[in-house]
């Protein structure tokens, strides 16, 4: 990765943009906004390309750009999940009603989370990052990640409470186990 090689960057961006878009979508709850986030984050990654040295570093840099941009932007604009139900992805038909309900619950629950908690949950449980890597992406201490994840999961459980008598009891139980 010596120098700012547009071809090498483009190869990297093409290979990782779909996964990054999915992660960004979970952070902001809107496919179009997530696309803008990734487009912007990858542009920043191209600018920083000569000092990133490897694709792993480049991906970490892009994740950080997505995360910090999403958090800072929602801090400025306010965050109450207004985007959460905008442009929800269309699901293929014939899905089981329970699965649909779970996804609607998740979408709604994520939308209620403050941006840092939502980012922490996404990075830890979707991107499967370690606490240290999550802290790097969020530009915060590991302890902050722990508290954000803990608070996020607690809020997910609270959001889940009214639904516990319904079809997602299994998830409810698992949530309680992890966060106790």
């Amino acid at each position, binding site marked *: 990765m010596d120098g700012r090689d547009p071809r090498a960057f483009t190869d990297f*961006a093409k290979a990782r943009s779909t996964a990054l878009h999915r992660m960004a979508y979970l952070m902001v709850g809107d496919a179009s906004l997530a696309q803008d986030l990734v487009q912007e984050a990858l542009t920043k990654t191209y600018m920083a390309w000569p000092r990133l040295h490897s694709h792993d570093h480049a991906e970490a840099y892009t994740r950080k750009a997505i995360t910090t941009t999403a958090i800072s932007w929602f801090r400025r604009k306010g965050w*109450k999940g207004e985007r959460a139900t905008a442009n929800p992805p269309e699901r293929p038909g014939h899905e089981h009603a329970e699965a649909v309900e779970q996804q609607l619950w998740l979408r709604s629950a994520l939308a209620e989370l403050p941006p840092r908690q939502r980012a922490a949950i996404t990075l830890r449980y979707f991107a499967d990052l370690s606490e240290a890597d999550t802290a790097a992406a969020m530009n915060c201490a590991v302890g902050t990640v722990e508290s954000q994840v803990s608070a996020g999961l607690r809020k997910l459980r609270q959001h889940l409470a009214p639904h516990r008598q319904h079809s997602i009891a299994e998830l409810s139980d698992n949530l309680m186990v992890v966060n106790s």
Partner: protein
Amino acid sequence: MNTNLNELLSAETDALPEAKFDYNRMVRDGNRRLARKRVGVVSGLAAATVAGASVLSVVPMPWQANPPASASALAKAFADNLPTYASGKTVYIDGQSFEVDHKIVSFVQTKVGVVYADGEGRVWASDGESEEQVGLIGKKAVTPEIGDPALILVADDSRVGWVDLSNDTAEFRVFDQATNESISTPASAAPNASFLRGLDGESAYVRDSRGLILWNTVDGSTTELRTRSENLGERELLDAESGLILREEPRKAGTVLRIGESYDSGATLKGAANAWDITPGGKYVLGEGGGDSAGLWDVTTGEKVADLARADSLFTPYHWIDDDTYAGLSTDLVDEELVTEISLYTCKVSTSKCEVGYQTLPIKETVLPLGYAPEKPFPSGGPSPTPAPEN
């Protein structure tokens, strides 16, 4: 729950429509922003990519005192091309300050004073003693979206050029602050498709529906330099100085950077990944190699002749004082989103030494004489601005 939550999150994204990304635009926008960063800062955020710094042997300077300016001292400071910056309605130069009548959104410095745009898009000229409106660039120019034309005010010596909207239609205007005279010529395109790319003495380089035009601001004559289809955006003219044109040229194997007296001639800058500024005497080009190290290239041979020494802080040259002396800004953090303060220095190429001028300026309130306003923060759309506590 880890597995379940992971599965649920994954399922949430499985049906996500495939996003279409414009990879060419990423490279194009990245190069454009880098070019602008090399001249200073962009979007009100500090540049973070030029690691080649010469912040060695830093000597504190008494700039921060900022006493009210005397007319003669101000005139000398501007004539000497000393570094300046603005905050609100205040302009700072050489340890002095003076007030202008309106809050400065973007500005340039000349050998006489400053020419600035306010929040209404009006253009004002001030030498610290008197002030007058000299044009109108419009509100859009001072609140640009990302991707809007970057160079709004272009300065050279005592002259400043811009695309003026005072007469409802777009026209190119050059104002000479030394004589208080303006000259204008109609643009043949709408304001958003008309650009003043560069200014070099009596020559202005303008782009509209005719192509890239060399406009002689003395006799009014025009010469077509590049056709309408040969438009590389801002990179068709990165800088113009001392009769030289610095530009990017597409080749089969990739783009090259060239400098010369015409688009048909000139030296290729060897090993340069980017270039953005010709020194005042027309001897060198400031650019960077592949590894983000800033350096100087000889305009005649195209050979790299000097590296700017390295340092710990990130550092970006943004203003040439003479062929050996430049002003630069430094930041402490790599992540431009987190930069809150900058410091300004002057440095000597010949000695690789810098002196600190203004320290720990708040980035959000500091305007450098780059001639363009910060872009609106990304993204332009989004949730309603309802304030909400984070937790």
